[in-house]
């Protein structure tokens, strides 16, 4: 398929379908993430990229036979590898024997929050989540340095550059009604993540989606009055800092890194506080990375349009 627009749409549909698949498997948190990240924000960022590059793939001069062979060989090896795996839903599979029983049985006593996924994500597996947050932070820095824009372009964008969709009255009215709801929902997902599906990643992405929607309809100059790009860029680091800072605070108070038990007098209360702060750090980093990426893309568009 050479039309990249269709490819982006198909990947979005694929994400949405896999989200329903996860929902069917009772993995609500994963489904939520897949729907908001895979179908939502990544489709949006793909579309923003498509605005800067040609819509159709270039005709390649050679036939990608070697690549096809490598893909088929890898696929065959992977399928061969699955033959030794335990059957689907097998209760004796190692994954259900190793740490899962402890998480499921002791989570309520040790962490004290109803959503086991959050307690595994933010407490038992806190190191992994710190790694994921760092990955997002690093990816954000990577894209930011790839899409460097000059101060001139930024000044140009700060002046009254009309948004592309300035004329769309209906879209603007409906967006004005929906954006507050989207932002409130993001905060709900953020702070209710201990009790229901959700958490920092989803909340950050939903929050960023609300801001991006506003930017698309009302222009970058208006958005920048509240979300100054410099401050948002600082916030990308602040989230990671908050996460790491909680870990260091635990160290100082005499526990292990990211061992929240020591944060308060009571271990369970400490866990609550630690998880809340850590999720907040994740949310801040994810939201500000996504917003910054979209700003960068918009600046590029402005540059192409006005500085030639």
């Amino acid at each position, binding site marked *: 398929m050479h039309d990249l627009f269709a490819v982006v749409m198909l990947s979005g549909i694929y994400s949405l379908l896999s989200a329903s698949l996860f929902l069917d498997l009772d993995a609500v948190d994963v489904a939520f993430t897949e729907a908001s990240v895979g179908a939502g924000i990544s489709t949006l960022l793909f579309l923003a990229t498509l605005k800067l590059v040609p819509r159709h793939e270039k005709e390649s001069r050679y036939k990608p036979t070697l690549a096809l062979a490598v893909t088929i060989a890898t696929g065959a090896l992977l399928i061969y590898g699955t033959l030794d795996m335990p059957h689907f839903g097998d209760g004796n599979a190692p994954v259900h024997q190793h740490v899962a029983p402890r998480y499921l049985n002791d989570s309520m006593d040790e962490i004290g929050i109803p959503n086991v996924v959050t307690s595994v994500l933010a407490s038992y597996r806190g190191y992994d989540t710190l790694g994921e947050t760092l990955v997002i932070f690093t990816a954000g820095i990577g894209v930011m340095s790839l899409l460097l824009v000059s101060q001139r372009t930024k000044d140009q964008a700060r002046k009254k550059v009309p948004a592309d969709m300035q004329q*769309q009255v209906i*879209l603007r009215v*409906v967006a004005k009604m929906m954006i507050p709801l989207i932002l409130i929902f993001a905060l709900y997902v953020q702070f209710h993540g201990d009790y229901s599906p959700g958490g920092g990643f989803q909340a950050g992405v939903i929050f960023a989606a609300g801001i991006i929607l506003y930017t698309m309809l009302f222009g970058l100059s208006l958005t920048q009055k509240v979300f100054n790009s410099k401050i948002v860029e600082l916030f990308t680091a602040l989230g990671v800092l908050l996460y790491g800072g909680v870990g260091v605070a635990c160290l100082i108070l005499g526990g292990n890194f990211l061992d929240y038990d020591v944060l308060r007098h009571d271990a369970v209360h400490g866990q609550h506080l630690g998880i809340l702060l850590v999720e907040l750090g994740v949310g801040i980093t994810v939201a500000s990375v996504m917003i910054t990426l979209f700003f960068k893309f918009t600046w590029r568009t402005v540059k192409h349009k006005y500085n030639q």
Partner: protein
Amino acid sequence: MELIIDILSWIFLVLGSFFCFTGALGLLRFPDFFSRTHAAGVTDTMGAGMILLGLILQAGWGLVMAKLIMILVFSFLASTTACHAMAKAALKSGLRPHTDHDHNAEDSSSKP
């Protein structure tokens, strides 16, 4: 009372399914982009809306009902706006609706 609510709810559910079905049929069989968008819009608003109404009646007072109402409002706003945006984008990029006039012109030109 229970019976009346059940009957009403089932009427809404069946009507909703009917609209979903006709929407899908229209999406496949209508001649041009704009009428297909209309069919897809019908699925989202009338189909999903009626089914949600039926479910609200089934749910009774409570948190589930509030959530369903929120979904109803949100999907009504979002899907109609999305349809509008799609149709407008298509019109802006130069796609013309397939009209009766075109049809007659085609017919007369194809005639020897």
